[in-house]
């Protein structure tokens, strides 16, 4: 049986390419839009991505929490004049896929189509952003759907735990906002709020970052972007940054649920993407719990004691910070023991420093695995988008191995002492305490 949880997907550390890649090109349209792209003409496929910066859920006002997510859901309802069924048929007819996603920081649009339908795909996106479907009926439908999603998320121990952990970890900082909002905040969202969100974020080119990969014709794509996105506004708003946060001291919360297993979620504050220690953090995470059977947590909790089937850690990256987050599930009777063993593994970094072998294995994995994940156009366009969002230069892909290989044992050790601090561990346990 397969072990698939979306949680593990979330835990895949963000890291950026290596080895020999197609050339990173940059094109500037006549209207001044900038797109990073890679060419691959082997198949008639194009993957195109857009991000609108500072439009994620951390920018939702507290009383309108869930607004960014609301906007993303609304876009699936088509655009002015095309309801969701007609819109879905329009996409199916041309085998176009358009997805809308958000995270704490940004709003993302992912487009995939055959070359022959790419113009249509871009035009549809422009119609959606410039004249969304704002009928009262549609707004009511989205409200209802999001409230149901809120209810569904209360049945999943991992989601319950993540929500609690985020709130606990970030406190009043907006990074602790709930992506789905609350029933009250979702019900309070009206047409004016949505219009305002679209105007200030989704049709504002000062916030827009674009990337593409596949069967690209630069002249053609330039012309189409100008034609369809030409009406985007150029107003630069003075949007406040998310305030810095500092992790609180040790805290553990229990959520009692009638379950056979206890799910334990824990987190530590990590370093920023821009920090020199970023690569040391990727290595540390790999050795700690990110590297599957080769990691210290799996070998201790699963292989030695049989305490858990799934145990892992990962890096959640934000524009201006990160957290190392861990997950395990074990039968209720063993919850305390599993947590104690996890803490032992953490403290052990001081007693038993990272070995040469562990370091080499982590470096090997992190450098060699990355190119293997980049076999589809959407993987490549995603990397190009993220490189821009994190202000990495276009040569970055070829330098990444070097950045990883430069990290020393001492740096990993130093970082472990700094961030894997048991006094600052944040823990949530969901299960049956009896």
């Amino acid at each position: 049986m397969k072990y698939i949880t979306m949680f593990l997907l979330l835990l895949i550390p963000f890291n950026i390419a290596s080895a020999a890649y197609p050339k990173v090109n940059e094109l500037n349209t006549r209207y001044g839009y900038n797109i990073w792209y890679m060419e691959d003409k082997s198949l008639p496929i194009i993957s195109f991505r857009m991000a609108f910066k500072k439009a994620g859920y951390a920018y939702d006002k507290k009383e309108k929490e869930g607004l960014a997510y609301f906007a993303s859901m609304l876009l699936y309802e088509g655009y002015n004049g095309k309801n969701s069924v007609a819109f879905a048929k329009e996409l199916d007819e041309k085998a176009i896929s358009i997805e809308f996603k958000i995270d704490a920081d940004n709003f993302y649009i992912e487009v995939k189509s055959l070359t022959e339908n790419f113009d249509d795909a871009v035009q549809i996106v422009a119609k959606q952003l410039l004249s969304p479907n704002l009928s009262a009926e549609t707004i009511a439908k989205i409200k209802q759907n999001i409230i149901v999603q809120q209810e569904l998320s209360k049945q999943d121990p991992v989601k319950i735990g993540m929500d609690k952990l985020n709130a606990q970890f970030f406190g009043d900082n907006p990074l602790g906002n709930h992506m789905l909002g609350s029933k009250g905040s979702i019900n309070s969202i009206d047409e004016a709020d949505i219009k305002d969100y679209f105007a200030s974020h989704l049709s504002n080119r000062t916030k827009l970052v674009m990337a593409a990969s596949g069967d690209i014709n630069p002249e053609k794509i330039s012309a189409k972007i100008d034609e369809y996105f030409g009406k985007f506004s150029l107003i630069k708003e003075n949007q406040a940054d998310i305030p810095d946060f500092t992790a609180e001291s040790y805290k553990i919360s229990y959520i009692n649920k009638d379950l056979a297993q206890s799910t334990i979620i824990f987190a530590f504050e990590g370093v920023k993407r821009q920090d020199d220690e970023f690569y040391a953090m990727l290595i540390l995470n790999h050795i700690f719990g990110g590297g599957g059977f080769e990691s210290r947590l799996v070998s201790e909790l699963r292989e030695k004691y049989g305490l858990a089937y799934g145990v892992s850690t990962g890096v959640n990256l934000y524009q201006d910070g990160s957290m190392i987050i861990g997950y395990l599930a074990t039968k209720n009777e063993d919850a305390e023991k599993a947590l104690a063993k996890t803490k032992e593994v953490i403290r052990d970094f001081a007693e038993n420093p990272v070995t040469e072998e562990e370091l080499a294995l982590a470096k090997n994995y992190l450098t060699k695995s990355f190119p293997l994940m980049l076999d589809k156009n959407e993987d490549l366009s995603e990397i190009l988008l993220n490189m821009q969002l994190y202000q990495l230069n276009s040569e970055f892909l070829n330098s990444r191995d070097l950045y990883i290989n430069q990290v020393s044992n001492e740096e990993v050790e130093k970082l472990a002492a700094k961030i894997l601090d048991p006094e600052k561990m944040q823990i949530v346990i969901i299960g049956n305490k009896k």
Partner: protein
Amino acid sequence: MQKLPAFIFIILITMFHVKHCIASEIVDAPKTSILKNAKIDDAKNPQSKTSSFILENGLEIYVIPNHKIPAIAHLLVYKAGSIDENFGKTGLAHYLEHMMFKGTEKFSDGAYSHIIAENGGQHNAYTTYDYTLYFALIQKSALAKVMKMEADRMRGLNFDISAFDNEKKVILEERRLRLIDDPNALLSQQMKQALFIEHPYRRAIIGYEEDILNLSPDDLYEFYHKYYAPNNAILIIAGDITPEEAKQMVEKYYGEIEKSSIPEKKIFFEPKSFANQLIKLTSSQISKPQFARYYIAPSQNFGKKDDIYPLIITSYLLGGGKSGFLYQKLVEERKMAIDISAEYNDFVVGPAIFAINAIPAPDISLEELEKAIDEEIASFLKYNASPEDLKRTKYLVNANNIYRQESYKTLAFTYATILAAGISPDYIQDFGKNISSVTSVQINQAANDLFSLHYISGYLMEHKK
């Protein structure tokens, strides 16, 4: 087994739009002749580049070149799964899958994982009703090492008793995680138990707790020696490799393994049922009621084959997301559901399942929703797919045929799933053509055949305090 990259599942979903991989087993291996090179004139047919051959010991090999990046997908399928377990031994096939990572006479416990990790690769395994699949996604330079180890553990498994005992605990945790504490999985399991009267698809692949507790290393070795052999396996190698290179390497590592006598496959029948049943699962975990409906449907090896392609299109037309008939009627027009979809997967040895899943709108009871679904199914049966409906669906299928050539992994898993179900590899080659030739009359006939059968409904309900 370990963490599984979710992309594999996504691949399977996007390929043929099925979410429930009930999986399958072969009754008799397809007797493909020596090196078969298909035609390469049609760019829309990725499988045209696929070669296949059989070693003297019976191992079947499929090579799918894709030179975009220097990566290889190495998939080994054993045509043995949970349906091959005897009474009282449920969970055995899956337990063995776990133990396959615990070392051989030549390689120690964990060596396999270690070598793959060292080379930046991913590996995992999964057990289905009909087969067990082991895969590695690796850099080309690591292929020889991986193949050597995979071939070695086909016959050389040798684990110690403490690893066996420890893994039992891990498996019981897996069972809690994925069955007991997951109400959707539990409902689905209980529904299958009602849907299939005799067929072993009614059992959970992971097994009953009581059986798992009683399994011994001897049970595992017996199953292993019986079914893990070259003449009961299919190897798929996809990626940056030519058929000639692959053949040379495969002969070196797998060629020397001796064939063994594989017991004849049991063919399970499923008697006709006469009553619909309602399964209600209440759980304190549930905060939002959900509805499911299962029908027994034909597969490539079971039931009325003529209905398969029409049913694939039916699943699209009826419940393929927001453009589907049920979504249009029940979500958009009648506002009785928040979401509704239909799923059908014909890649199984035994009977397949056609499923409908729905979430009721607030203030709509599961009973009201079920009644409305039945009304809409009845109106769908009177409805004739329009030329636009057919054109849209067929275009999508053909576009997916192009999309799935992007990754070296996609076709590898598609082949594995199909071949393991005992379906001819021509299935992939002919899929577009077969879908294109479906008429609205055939769709209507297949839908009428399906919906006149008995069914199981499932209600997932909040625990009333």
